[in-house]
């Protein structure tokens, strides 16, 4: 899955995959982000959050999967969004490759770290 994040910029070159995925992830994020906010600020209250509560939620497979997908799509969406913004500013050559590398790497690290955190929140490991 990390491959998808770092691969995004190149797939963008061929046709509009980047563009399309940006939209698809956006559509997914609308739902999940709203859900996330609602759950953790309105249903539960942020100041009442405890590890136990988090862990209880994260140990449900459905919730875990949703959150993990949230992480991946948000990362892709965010990183790809920034990359696009940079291309729109006309970066090319070295600069462009550097942007691809750095953003790709940041994306991978974020997903890896996020996954580790998520796993730590469960009682699965």
């Amino acid at each position, binding site marked *: 899955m990390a491959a998808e994040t770092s691969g995004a910029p190149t797939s*963008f070159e061929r*046709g*509009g*995959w980047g*563009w*399309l995925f940006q939209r698809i992830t956006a559509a997914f994020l609308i739902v999940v982000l709203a859900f996330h906010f609602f759950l953790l600020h309105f249903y539960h209250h942020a100041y009442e959050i405890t590890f136990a509560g988090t862990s209880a939620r994260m140990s449900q497979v459905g919730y875990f999967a949703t959150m993990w997908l949230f992480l991946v799509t948000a990362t892709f969406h965010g990183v790809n969004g920034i990359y696009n913004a940079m*291309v*729109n*500013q*006309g970066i090319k050559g070295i600069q462009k490759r550097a942007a691809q590398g750095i953003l790709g790497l940041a994306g991978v690290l974020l997903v890896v770290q996020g996954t580790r955190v998520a796993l730590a929140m469960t009682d699965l490991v």
Partner: protein
Amino acid sequence: MSTQVPEQEAEAESSAEAEADASAESPQDKRMAKKAEAASYRDAQKKAQEEIEAAERSVQLKVFRYDPEVEGKQEPRFDEFHVPFTKGMTVLDALMYARDHYDPSLTFRHSCRQAVCGSDAMFVNGQQRLCCKTQMSDLDWPVRVEPLPHQDVVKDLVVDMQHFYDQMHSVEPYFQGDENAPSGEEQKQTRENREKIKMSTRCIWCGACMSSCNIAAGDNEYLGPAAINKAYRFYMDEREDQEELEEHRLRILEQEHGVWRCQTQFSCTEVCPKDIPLTEHIQELKREAVKNNLKFW
């Protein structure tokens, strides 16, 4: 002043000019010096003064001035002109008045005076507008006129359109339908299809859209709204019906600096003097490109 010409550019231009003009350099220099002093619009100016007094109102124009060659104009500046206002006066009329009565060196492109030649798109009160199609009475006075942003200034209000033309030419802007259509007989086209492409065929190459688009300003390779619209005009024309050709047109459009760069800013659509729904056309092509890609998935 927000509109700046960096110095090295002015130098580059004038040295190029000096080269081109090497043979005639000394008389040219002399003339420059002398003419700088000679201000001989006396009678014209007097006449203009009378007209201003006669007219009920006069409008103040602030016009961007720059000439790579002329001393005093190499550093861009704004000149003010007071022009007698008459009903129905357009920005172009006012500029022509200022040129013919005050300063013949005031330079701008114009020709048809009826919004078909696309020569006189300029930056008027902070928006790209076609001067001949803009009524003075619709603007806040004083009226500030500048050359189109994001393009090199050649002189005063004249910008270099080459980049715009290059982008237009890069989308193969010509009909490539059936080479062997029977001679003496027209190709058929439905009314609906002609209606579909109608707006897109109205473009007069004024460059206003391109100048207003922030993405085009940042990414020089971006095809830009006008060129994409031109491609739309052919892509949607049912007389160009071979599948291969459609693929080919899409490939040009879906390159990295093609349709994907558009961020739906809508500035292009706002400024187009021909009311072409540019954003809509670009969006439609994005969807076409996606559909086309999914087909081969």
